[in-house]
């Protein structure tokens, strides 16, 4: 074969390749390009909010408010880590809130029975893991659509919690259990936030550079392609649902510790907020995209939005409106960037 002609074709194709890529990028414009690096976009937005709000509202920059915001978003952000793994691999889980509640209730009840703290915490984590297993079985093994399956487990798990405790909370949990949720490090950082930072760092690195975790992007990008590439898709789906359940269980236990009580009917809006946050942070509902840091920042964004609403004296009943709008906007942006990318 004539090497020069190949070279010529190669050069030509490379040029065509570049042209095509350029043509594809052009219509997206500056906004799209920033949105492509969603984490950067979020960092800028969050910094802007912090700077502007700190300048105008002393209440916002008060140590109490900072602590409250960090504490409030930490548990949801833990759930968001698991949700990111699910969204990236093309799944999702609506049952996380119910899961948190049941895990918290089991821990609380065990503490009331006088069981030492460590086994109680482990029991809560086991509950979360079991709920994750149930999701994994229905979705990955039986093959039920994730929306329907987790909608079902959501009401089942919630129903179990409400039935066992007849809708009543378990209060006055022992002091030695509360440190996990109520402790503060360095005067301003709540313990749950520290736990979150560690988890975020570990899972973000694993999702970026861990060989096993990178498989999630293949599964989410194309289920069929992943299978043909020799990836065990079913096993991966099972493990991600279980991991998401475990993280939700952890969030439930930490939250119970923070409140000093277990409430069987709490954490209802968690799934919505976590999925919204993850999508704002760059996860795609179509799978194959997203990062842990992005999702955690997305959840922080929503938490700050709600915090500002409270500080500004907006009716708490209006929170739902803002959350709903944020979710739909995030999905619209997701669809919109997809559509731009698909053209050309």
């Amino acid at each position: 074969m004539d090497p020069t002609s190949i070279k010529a074709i190669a050069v030509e194709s490379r040029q065509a390749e570049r042209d095509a890529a350029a043509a594809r990028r052009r219509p997206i414009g500056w906004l799209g390009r920033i949105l492509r690096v969603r984490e950067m976009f979020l960092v800028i937005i969050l910094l802007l909010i912090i700077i502007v709000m700190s300048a105008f509202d002393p209440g916002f920059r008060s140590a109490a408010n900072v602590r409250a915001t960090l504490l409030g978003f930490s548990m949801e952000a833990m759930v968001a880590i698991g949700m990111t793994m699910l969204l990236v691999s093309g799944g999702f889980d609506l049952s996380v809130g119910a899961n948190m509640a049941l895990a918290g209730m089991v821990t609380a009840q065990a503490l009331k029975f006088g069981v030492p703290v460590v086994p109680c915490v482990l029991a809560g984590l086991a509950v979360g893991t079991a709920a994750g297993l149930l999701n994994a079985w229905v979705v990955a093994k039986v093959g039920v659509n994730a929306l329907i399956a987790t909608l079902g487990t959501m009401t089942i798990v919630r129903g179990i919690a409400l039935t066992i405790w007849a809708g009543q909370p378990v209060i006055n949990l022992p002091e030695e259990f509360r440190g996990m949720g109520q402790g503060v490090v360095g005067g301003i950082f709540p313990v749950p936030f520290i736990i979150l930072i560690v988890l975020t760092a570990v899972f973000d690195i694993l999702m970026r550079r861990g060989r096993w975790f990178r498989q999630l992007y293949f599964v989410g990008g194309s289920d069929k392609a992943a299978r043909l590439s020799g990836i065990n898709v079913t096993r991966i789906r099972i493990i991600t649902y279980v991991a998401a359940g475990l993280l939700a269980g952890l969030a439930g236990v930490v939250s119970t510790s923070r409140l000093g009580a277990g409430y069987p009917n709490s954490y209802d809006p968690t799934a919505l907020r976590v999925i919204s946050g993850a999508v704002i942070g760059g996860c795609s509902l179509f799978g194959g995209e997203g990062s842990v840091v992005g999702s955690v920042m997305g959840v922080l964004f929503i938490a700050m939005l709600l915090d500002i609403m409270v500080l500004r004296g907006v009716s708490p009943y209006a929170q739902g409106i803002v959350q709903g709008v944020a979710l739909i906007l995030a999905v619209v942006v997701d669809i919109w960037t997809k559509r731009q990318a698909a053209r050309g």
Partner: protein
Amino acid sequence: MPDHETMLEIKSVSKAFPGTQALDNVNLVVRRGEVHAILGENGAGKSTLMLILAGVHPKDSGEILLEGRPIEIQNPHHAQSLGISMVHQDLSLAPSLSVAENMFANRQPLTRLGLIDFPTLYQQTEEALAPFELATDPRTMVRDLSVAFQQVVEIATALSRNAKVLILDEPTSALTAHETTILFRIISRLRDQGVTTLYITHKLSEVMEIADRFTVLRDGQVMGTLDTKDATEDDIVRMMVGRELSHYFPDLGRVTEDCLFEVKNLNGRTFRDVSFRLYRGEVLGIAGLAGAGRTDMARAIFGAEPLLSGEILISGQQVTIHSPADAVNLGLGYVPEDRKQAGLFLSLSVRENTVAASLRQFSSFIFMDHRKALAAVTDMVKSLDIKTPSLEQQVMNLSGGNQQKVMLAKWLVIKPKVLIVDEPTRGVDVGVKADVHQLLRDLAARGVGVIMISSELPEVLGMSDRILVMREGRIVGEMTHDRATEENVMSYAAGVQAA
């Protein structure tokens, strides 16, 4: 034959799926370092055979020997580790990951901490792509690559897994002639390096050009294996369909002077200044490379994509088309290239698909007139010779060729004035291809204007009364049937010759 020449031997392999015997006692010997084409109509069993080799399906019975040793292929991963890699027709790459990660999925180099070592990964990717002289940045996301380039990435991936046997499933179905040339150069170089290639295709010209030998399957049985140099295209067709096909394209009809449809200075996102006329009774072929703006232009005319400026006239009357609904009301039909996603409702029946564009026609007040609709569908199924067990059969269960016919039927029901067909015979077998060509010609004879976008040069040349060639969003050449040759269409399309 001496043993060292045999790479792969398939002995009495059979495979049944519910309702069909996909493979019936298949025997095949593949020599080391040859390009061996696997031919057959849709449903002949060629894909099934290859998927068994690739570890996707298990065989029911029979034996497979690789380099003389019997092997039991467990799954795709096992096949790859044995040295058999398949490039699937629907490419199996993750679009939102980089070229590098796709190529080294699950075998990325690791650092001492057990994390992926990206610098080394990128370097290995560059090395793996280097022999193809199509070096790209390994960080490029796969969705930013053309289909042709993705194909190259898949082939490079297979080779980086030390593939001894490379299976290509209709690799050129989404490639332009130019890209096909590049692919063929790559295949022949691999042959020089001793890689054995199994090549599934519908295109006979490709077999003649690239294959050393070929095997024809029909109804799950091997019809024979021949040396390419001892066979003609007619021989292959005879083996494939079991009958003679006297000619491949129907005779041209009579084009009138009556201008049916005209566009003036159309501008869109990816096309510029497009003007042309379509006469009653004409088949107007639109040739060009992938990405030349042909499909976008057709979609814009049909209202499926924004038209930035320009005029559209039907029978001399200027019309406004804002949506496909407008286009349908004006008598335009558009058969898209992507039949699985854009052209058909796969989970609906033949009947429902056929009347999908003409519900109003079959409704009185708000209810469907089922008897009227059923009569029209029955008529279509009969006249287009759509092979389906019943009108209520889900379209996803039909063969590709019959799906294509259902898609055409949908538009024929509305009795269009102008029918735009985009790659009308992609991925269909020889028999259906001839049917589709005859159908388009019949439509033209009945006064319908047919605009046919096609990347297959023989099709464009054989079918079109007139050919427009598009390149980079513009019409760069126009020629009548008798003036058109493969060479001048290609030179316009590739921009070798000034317009």
